[in-house]
């Protein structure tokens, strides 16, 4: 679901075909019939943005027919735990959970807690901006005192236990409702339910694959939660052949999340400190929590080792290992917020673009370009010239007069980058495997690696500040920046060694994160990567042929953590430590040897027996019982219900997309009540019910990739082979829609939203089937998005159609579903385009308030909500 794997991850898709050849059934649930659907046993056409309604239907099917894997659910999930009496469900509040504050459009999540571990009440704004889930890294939020035992009902019958709450929450997600909301016929929906449940349990497992078709939504995090709930109920997590696969889109996008270039994270999913963290102890208490179970209990060792890597000898126990040197976050500092600050002026002065082309690749390209045109300076580093470096002379806004070259003040530096064969280093691919690349040739001319560039920049900055007495310069002056060198750049293997971790007493690399210490005797740049340089050997460089090893013992690259393939694989054995079945054995307890063993590296303490009961008062790793399979979670369990940590509710709930042609059929609450909306004149929204005039933009729009191009096109539109394979931007429409709008195959058409209009060639195809949704026909329109004004193949920027509305948990934009109009012929050009789109806005009655009245349950419809620039103080 939410993935066109055959198109976007073609070589990975061979394994789906391999599984199919061995008898696996493949279902593809997607708005469009794609290359993936063509190879699936069954394609299910779904209305874009309604996946939670569909998955909620599956959950309801499982629970009403008692099809869950009960032993697994009772032992490994939080199904038996009792919830607070203060908790109220969306069933009680017309689509809202308890704790909603319509004034801040945020929740106080304290009533979502377990009954025996109450949380402090928190004003909603504080939750949304300051202690929001993005600050918890992968550890999730803490739940006070989880290690002390949580009140539970192992029979799963107590009305306040998670299992019963779940049942009630999804009770109206019936096959009829799925049909009315998603446009999926009931029989087809039930076929999916049957196949999924029949293929799960002791003997069988089912895998779930998603991509950005799930993440780029205003409820994206909850799409994934819904998938996790199904997989947990069916016992498909931590077991071979099961799991949830997030297919990622770039060579090292997984790596750039693990070793993050993200504002809210430090390496290894340690949170970036915020204003509430006065010192290292308060910070660590926030990460470990008091009385929490699990491996975040050792966060002090991970963090101190990181600080030691950053600041070397300057970091000592006396000065909190320079914890104070870290800048503090206090809200959303994500890329879209930053770009709006650029447009507004006076806040952001300089911008680096490193192998990224937001003028084409980010949502709302116009906003991106106007932001870049309003800077002091911009540095672009890329292989080839890209639209983000040339906006001052060829942006679409030049044609409309919104950017005038001679009046555009931004100073632009373009630095040619070294390519993947001109530098050595690791990429982390989508299954967490680090693979090393050797340098094949030297780059030429001024081409340099990022390693060279940033190392040089650091050296020059240090020189300029040398001798500074200003306290704010200490972090830079004390920064450990003396990696071994190869030629004139740092040695990538030495950087990887430091990421792996080094024992300062011996000077040798550590073997894994279990060796890290909180006393300053180890350095480690990213604890989850610890082990990649075990034994002073670059494990990521291993290339033993697949003909010589099997799938689990493969000596090819290195997979974090500790070369483990299946996370939480303790759950592949029953609570007593025996494999659930011979067919599906992976990791088990060997009583004689007194250790966990099996095909994969066990994701559990090696010598902790399955019947182990942690002593009272224990915390962290020690507090994990022998059957707490989910060792990173605060209570050791897989979360069906998330008692904390999500901004928009403890359970996934079907909300309509921000721009939708439909009213929510399940609740008065139309869209995600906590989504981030920005009512700005330069970021208008198309109206959605209950607002009037949604018929001006009657069609559902979605966009995605082609095999032959790569994201914003900088690496593909310039290559003759690829440009020839996919030579032109197109829009796919159904024959019915073509008839309705007078569109002819291969003629021009243009797609319009309240942001702009873009041209494309028409492809009339029954791959885009009209849907019958709640008694009416809904048409969907699809476009690939790789084009821009330069390259061997040129086209309009599809991302210009999209406005900025974001998921409140992770601040990712809703770019996989919006509404639009489609018209035959080409769009107007120049200033006439602005007038054309303004006319659409007038007809749709669009103002800056459109789309910002986000609370629509319980009579709150009147109030508009707009994300503030800065978090307000809690009232």
């Amino acid at each position: 679901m939410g993935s066109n794997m055959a198109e976007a991850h073609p070589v990975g898709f061979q394994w789906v075909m391999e599984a199919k050849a061995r008898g696996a059934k493949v279902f593809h649930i997607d708005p469009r019939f794609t290359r993936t659907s063509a190879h699936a046993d069954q394609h299910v056409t779904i209305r874009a943005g309604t996946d939670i309604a569909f998955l909620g239907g599956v959950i309801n099917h499982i629970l009403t027919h008692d099809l869950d894997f009960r032993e697994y659910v009772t032992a490994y999930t939080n199904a038996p735990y009792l919830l607070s009496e203060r908790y109220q469900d969306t069933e009680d509040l017309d689509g809202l959970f308890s704790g909603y504050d319509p004034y801040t459009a945020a929740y106080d999540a304290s009533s979502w807690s377990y009954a025996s571990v109450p949380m402090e009440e928190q004003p909603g704004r504080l939750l949304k901006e300051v202690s929001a889930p993005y600050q918890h890294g992968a550890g999730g939020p803490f739940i006070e005192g989880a290690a002390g035992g949580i009140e539970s009902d192992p029979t799963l019958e107590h009305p306040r236990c998670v299992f019963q709450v779940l049942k009630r929450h999804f009770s109206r997600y019936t096959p009829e409702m799925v049909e009315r909301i998603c446009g999926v016929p009931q029989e087809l929906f039930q076929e999916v339910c049957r196949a999924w449940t029949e293929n799960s349990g002791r003997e069988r497992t089912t895998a779930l694959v998603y991509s950005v078709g799930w993440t780029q939504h205003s409820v994206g995090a909850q799409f994934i939660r819904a998938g996790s709930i199904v997989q947990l109920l069916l016992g498909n997590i931590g077991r071979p052949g099961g799991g949830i696969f997030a297919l990622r889109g770039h060579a090292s996008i997984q790596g750039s999340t693990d070793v993050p270039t993200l504002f809210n994270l430090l390496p290894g999913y340690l949170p970036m400190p915020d204003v509430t963290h006065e010192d290292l102890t308060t910070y660590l208490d926030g990460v470990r929590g008091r009385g929490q179970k699990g491996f975040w209990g050792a966060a002090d060792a991970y963090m101190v080792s990181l600080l030691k890597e950053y600041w070397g000898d300057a970091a000592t126990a006396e000065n909190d290992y320079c914890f104070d040197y870290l800048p503090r976050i206090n809200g959303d500092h994500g890329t879209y917020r930053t770009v709006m600050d650029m447009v507004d002026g006076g806040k952001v002065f300089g911008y680096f673009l490193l192998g990224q082309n937001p003028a084409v690749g980010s949502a709302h390209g116009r906003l991106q370009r106007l932001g870049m045109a309003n800077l002091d300076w911009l540095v672009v580093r890329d292989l080839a010239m890209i639209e983000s470096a040339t906006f001052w002379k060829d942006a679409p806004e030049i044609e409309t007069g919104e950017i005038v070259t001679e009046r555009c003040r931004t100073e632009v530096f373009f630095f040619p980058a070294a390519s993947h064969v001109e530098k050595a280093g690791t990429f982390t691919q989508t299954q967490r495997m680090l693979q090393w690349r050797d340098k094949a040739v030297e780059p030429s001319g001024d081409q340099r690696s990022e390693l060279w560039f940033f190392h040089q920049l650091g050296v020059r900055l240090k020189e300029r500040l040398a001798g500074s007495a200003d306290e704010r310069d200490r972090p830079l002056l004390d920064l450990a920046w003396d990696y071994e060198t190869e030629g004139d750049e740092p040695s990538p293997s030495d950087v990887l060694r430091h990421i792996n971790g080094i024992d300062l007493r011996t000077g040798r690399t550590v073997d894994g994160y279990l060796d890290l210490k909180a006393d300053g005797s180890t350095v480690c740049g990213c604890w989850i990567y610890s082990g990649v340089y075990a034994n002073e050997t670059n494990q990521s460089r291993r290339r033993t042929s697949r003909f010589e090893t099997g799938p689990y013992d493969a000596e090819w690259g290195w997979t974090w953590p500790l070369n483990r393939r299946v996370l939480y694989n303790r759950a592949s054995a029953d609570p007593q430590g025996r494999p659930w079945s011979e067919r599906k054995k992976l990791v088990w307890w060997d009583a004689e040897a007194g250790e966990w063993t099996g095909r994969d590296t066990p994701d559990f303490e090696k010598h902790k027996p399955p019947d182990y009961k942690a002593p009272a008062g224990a915390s962290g790793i020690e507090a994990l019982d022998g059957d707490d399979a989910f060792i990173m979670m605060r209570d050791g369990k897989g979360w069906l219900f998330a008692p904390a940590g999500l901004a928009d509710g403890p359970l996934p709930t079907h909300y309509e997309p921000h721009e939708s042609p439909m009213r929510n059929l399940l609740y008065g609450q139309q869209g995600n009540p906590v989504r981030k909306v920005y009512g700005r004149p330069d970021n208008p929204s198309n109206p959605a019910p209950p607002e009037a005039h949604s018929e001006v933009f009657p069609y559902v729009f979605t966009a995605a990739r082609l095999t032959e191009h790569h994201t914003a096109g900088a690496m593909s539109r310039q290559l003759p082979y690829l440009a020839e394979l996919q030579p032109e931007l197109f829009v796919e429409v159904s024959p019915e829609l073509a008839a309705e709008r007078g569109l002819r195959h291969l003629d021009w058409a243009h797609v319009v939203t309240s942001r702009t209009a873009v041209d494309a060639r028409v492809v009339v195809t029954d791959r885009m089937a009209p849907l019958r949704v709640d008694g009416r026909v809904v048409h969907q329109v699809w476009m690939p998005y790789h084009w821009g004004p330069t390259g061997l193949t040129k086209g309009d920027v599809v991302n210009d159609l999209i406005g900025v509305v974001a998921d409140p948990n992770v601040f990712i934009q809703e770019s996989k579903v919006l509404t639009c109009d489609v018209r035959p012929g080409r769009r107007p050009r120049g200033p006439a385009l602005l007038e054309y789109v303004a006319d659409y806005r007038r007809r749709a009655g669009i103002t800056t308030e459109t789309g910002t009245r986000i609370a629509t349950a319980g009579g709150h419809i009147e109030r508009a909500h707009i994300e503030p620039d800065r978090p307000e103080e809690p009232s």
Partner: protein
Amino acid sequence: MGVKRWLDAWPVFRQLTGTDPLGRGKAAQSARSAGLGSRTESADRVAGSVCPYCAVGCAQRVFVKDEKVVQIEGDPASPISRGRLCPKGSASKQLVTGPQREQRVLYRPPYGTAWQELDLDTAMDMVADRVLDARRKGWQDTDEDGKVLRRTMGLASLGGATLDNEENYLIKKLFTALGALQIENQARI
């Protein structure tokens, strides 16, 4: 030219007398193509690499001759890709050797209408100066309540998903030491 060699140059003769009676292989080969060898065979060395496009992580073999990349192929030994590359991975030789690759630093001054060339070292110095300036202009010591922020909102960065882990590591480390927070990449898009 001897009669034998003269006859052998005649494809019909080769077809009738050789091992290729259908004339689809050796019999039809010209002298020029018979003399051709594959670039992979004549390469000086092969570097183990990984496709730079999507996150499947297909393994590549990069063939180098005279310090130039002459061919990039899938690596059959890889347990992930088993030697396969999709159209993008297969086009990656064009990606690294094509004329679209920029070679020189380019500079567009404020209000400028065209690119100018700039020496790399000068450009690095100019960027270093500008980083310090933007950092200073956007510096925040504390918030309204006097809580420590110790940061600058004056500069931002976007990118990393196409870069190496080692590079992302240094980028985050340097920006963090500068107090710059708005360091983002494709993972949020």
